[in-house]
């Protein structure tokens, strides 16, 4: 069958600059570049190019430009090139469409429609270069009140806190499983989490035996496939996360193709080598909220109540009520993953059409828990499309205790957002198990890049916080009065609990 699909990208080679060194040939796992020894020239195949920019970035003479292919269908605002090509693909393969990373649809960007406040005259802004500025954050269940006992003039503390996660910055690396990403990537995330005194998350793929030493900075995940879950694994981390759903693909499970399951992954996941790792859509022991309560209780019992239990859900329409149920079922921390959340592989239709933007979901959950008077019983981690420190600050002002970042972390390590993670051919050595590609990511350099990112964001958060006249992140948490909405409807403002720009206190 003749394919009707045209190339998405165009590789432009400057022949005056090209020295036919074959770097591009070796760098491209998609085989867009080839060398013909008969004429000593490098040629390109645009159809294979995924636009990852690896060749253009590494070309020693800057001879390559990878740009969007101007495939000019007859102009049509409804049947766009993307729509047409998706139909060609399905007509040619009969399969569902897959995508990597979070949705790239042009839906409204709520973070960009929120503006932050600053102090002027009546309330001095605080300079983080000269004054202390505290970002330390504790995640976990908190009592409603501190209880003291008095013995004469002396006062003793009766309250014993439930286990808490201590973070220097209110940012955690979100779940990415070993299998979806390479060992080196896991190692870099763990190393950076340790360096920054924050946490990373193993995702559903178990914990490689060499990474147990990062336990204090690790959240171990229990997902519907239960890959790599055993007692030592549960004991290894600082917290356990039950993954119900994921923002990129609410309502469905995961699929790691058998080709990616090499020996190390098979050992870590506790599945035979070369078999597909399919995690079911639901947990088959959680068909209702009381089942969740049982699993939470079982995990707490197993780890002797020493670790907080996180429950992660995708942001769906009824997320506020679901979150309330999760808290009442015993979750110490709830993680909400928004519509823009990333993934190694998701059916494109689900990725682009299911879920809620995190800002709205977060605001709804925070408001609901406060209405019910149970906000103190669980911390909230918001994730799914946090792009920069301003997004972090806005999320905290809406009510989050901390944020999960994953896409931003991958970009820091070199990801160029080509959305082809599911192919296993990641040219940047991140979402691949091919030993030739894996070694492209130097874990030490990647650790440094991640730690730099966290440091840079924390400096910016301090500046924004100081500008608002506060010197501790607690004073921003849920402080929606420091946010104003711009270009948002009345209903959106009501859900966000934010006033329109221009309205004062």
């Amino acid at each position: 069958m003749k394919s009707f699909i045209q190339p998405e990208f165009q590789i432009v080679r400057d022949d005056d600059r090209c020295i036919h060194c074959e770097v591009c040939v070796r760098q491209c796992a998609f085989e867009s570049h080839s060398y013909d020894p008969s004429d000593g020239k490098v040629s390109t195949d645009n159809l294979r190019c995924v636009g990852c920019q690896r060749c253009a970035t590494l070309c020693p003479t800057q001879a390559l430009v990878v740009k969007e292919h101007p495939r000019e269908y007859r102009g049509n605002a409804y049947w766009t090139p993307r729509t047409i090509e998706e139909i060609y693909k399905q007509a040619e393969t009969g399969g569902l469409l897959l995508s990597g990373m979070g949705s790239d649809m042009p839906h409204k960007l709520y973070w960009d429609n929120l503006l932050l406040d600053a102090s002027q005259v009546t309330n001095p802004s605080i300079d983080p270069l000269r004054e202390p500025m505290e970002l330390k954050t504790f995640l976990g269940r908190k009592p409603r009140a501190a209880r003291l006992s008095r013995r004469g003039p002396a006062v003793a503390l009766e309250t014993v806190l439930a286990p808490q996660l201590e973070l220097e910055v209110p940012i955690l690396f979100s779940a990415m499983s070993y299998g979806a990403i390479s060992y080196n990537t896991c190692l870099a995330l763990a190393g950076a989490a340790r360096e920054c005194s924050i946490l990373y998350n193993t995702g559903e793929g178990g914990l490689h035996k060499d990474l147990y030493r990062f336990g204090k900075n690790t959240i171990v995940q229990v997902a519907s496939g239960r890959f790599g879950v055993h007692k030592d694994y549960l004991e290894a981390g600082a917290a356990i996360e039950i993954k119900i759903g994921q923002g990129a693909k609410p309502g469905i499970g995961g699929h790691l193709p058998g080709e990616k399951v090499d020996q190390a992954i098979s050992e870590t996941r506790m599945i035979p080598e070369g078999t597909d790792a399919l995690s079911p859509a639901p947990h088959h022991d959680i068909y209702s909220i009381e089942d969740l309560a049982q699993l939470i209780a079982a995990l707490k019992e197993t780890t002797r109540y020493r670790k907080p239990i996180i429950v992660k859900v995708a942001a769906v329409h009824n997320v506020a009520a679901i979150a309330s149920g999760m808290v009442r079922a015993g979750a110490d921390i709830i993680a909400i993953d928004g519509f823009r959340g990333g993934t190694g592989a998701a059916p494109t239709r689900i990725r682009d059409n299911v879920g809620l933007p995190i800002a709205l979901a977060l605001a709804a959950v925070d408001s609901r828990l406060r209405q019910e008077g149970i906000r103190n019983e669980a911390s909230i981690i918001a994730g799914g499309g946090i792009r920069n420190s301003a997004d972090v600050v806005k999320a905290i002002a809406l009510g989050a205790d901390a944020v999960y970042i994953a896409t931003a972390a991958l970009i820091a390590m070199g990801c160029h957002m080509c959305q082809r993670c599911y192919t296993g051919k990641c040219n940047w050595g991140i979402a691949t198990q091919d030993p030739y590609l894996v070694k492209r990511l130097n874990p030490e350099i990647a650790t440094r890049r991640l730690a730099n990112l966290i440091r840079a964001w924390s400096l910016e958060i301090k500046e924004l916080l100081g500008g608002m006249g506060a010197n501790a992140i607690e004073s921003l948490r849920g402080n929606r009065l420091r946010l104003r909405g711009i270009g948002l409807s009345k209903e959106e403002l009501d859900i966000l609990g934010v006033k329109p720009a221009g309205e004062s206190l």
Partner: protein
Amino acid sequence: MRMRYSWLRYRLFCVYRGHEIRPYYMLNYYSMNNSTSPRVRKLARERIPSGCSIAGIMDVNGVVIPGSEIVGLIEVMHDRSNGLGGGFAGYGIYPRHANDYCFHLMYDYSEAKQQTENAMEKCFEIVGEEEIPTTPVKEVVKRPILWRYFLRICPETRERYYEMSDDDIVMMVVMEINEFIEGAFVVSSGKNMGVFKGVGYPEQIARFYRVEEYGAHIWIAHGRFPTNTPGWWGGAHPFGLLDWAMVHNGEISSYGTNKRYLEEFGYRLMLQTDSEAILYLFDLLARRHGLPLDIACAALAPPLWERIAEMTPHEKNFYRTLRIVYGSAMINGPSALILAHPRGMVGLTDRIKLRPLIAAVAGSRRFLASEECAIRAVCPEPERVWSPAAGEPTVFTMEQG
């Protein structure tokens, strides 16, 4: 006093030059600094004060302090306010009704009064009521109807709300009146205490309410320079709830966080002023959660994490827990406040002391004020005068029964 003098000089200068006299807060530093007149430039170099004034005075032996002393304290700091709010709170002013709740009310119109009294009668027996006596002061305008009531909780009310304490019942009624009855506002609701406040300079308000005719063992006072809320009668300080009264100089950056936190505990923040939130935080922590006042202060202005890290393991656990539990109660942003209760008063500033507070001791008298000059105006030679450290509470407590 030097500030007053320069203000006078500015006014004389304006009269001399035929300029319009502008109030303090409208003086334009920039144009004055760049004026061609050396006299104007000199005036611009002198600091033009801004921000509220707060003051408190108490006698630890319970000796009655005449109202004139607190007026003497606050009027010296005239230039820290702008005539848009002043007020006083006194403890021990109604010895004949010492065990009755006393409600001070402001009514915008008489219908509100009728509605409020109906609401009060549902829960209380009104054992005394009268108009709050006032004297005509021509600067004090747009006066609401001012009334005070002495109330006892009916036994049936206690039966109906058997899960609540007396104070909880009173708080519920106060919140209901303030939220649902338009044109009615409960100014104070404690026993043997009362709040007198309004729009004007504090010394004018004192004359208006005849504060000098009352005697109290604790007085606090406030002169207001409002920035957030327009100068309306209810928005003046002190704020009162149950036995608490509080005056505050500052603007808290954490208001949104504090407000939502308090709402979870049933408080209704109606005044759109951050100071109200602080009073309710004290009520929540000290009364409802039972924390001693100094520990409540340590929750509202907690030590920095780096200081907690240096503590002994025991202390570390204490302050770490307190800070984790009460993170949303932290008062952040420039603040100096005086909180009074029947047994004493507490002065507190924010963690980096962005607003002034001075304390002094003279015999059995204890003083707190924004400026030392205010204390010395009433007590020229105190035994000890000090500036409390940032975020550290200054707790003065009665010594006798």
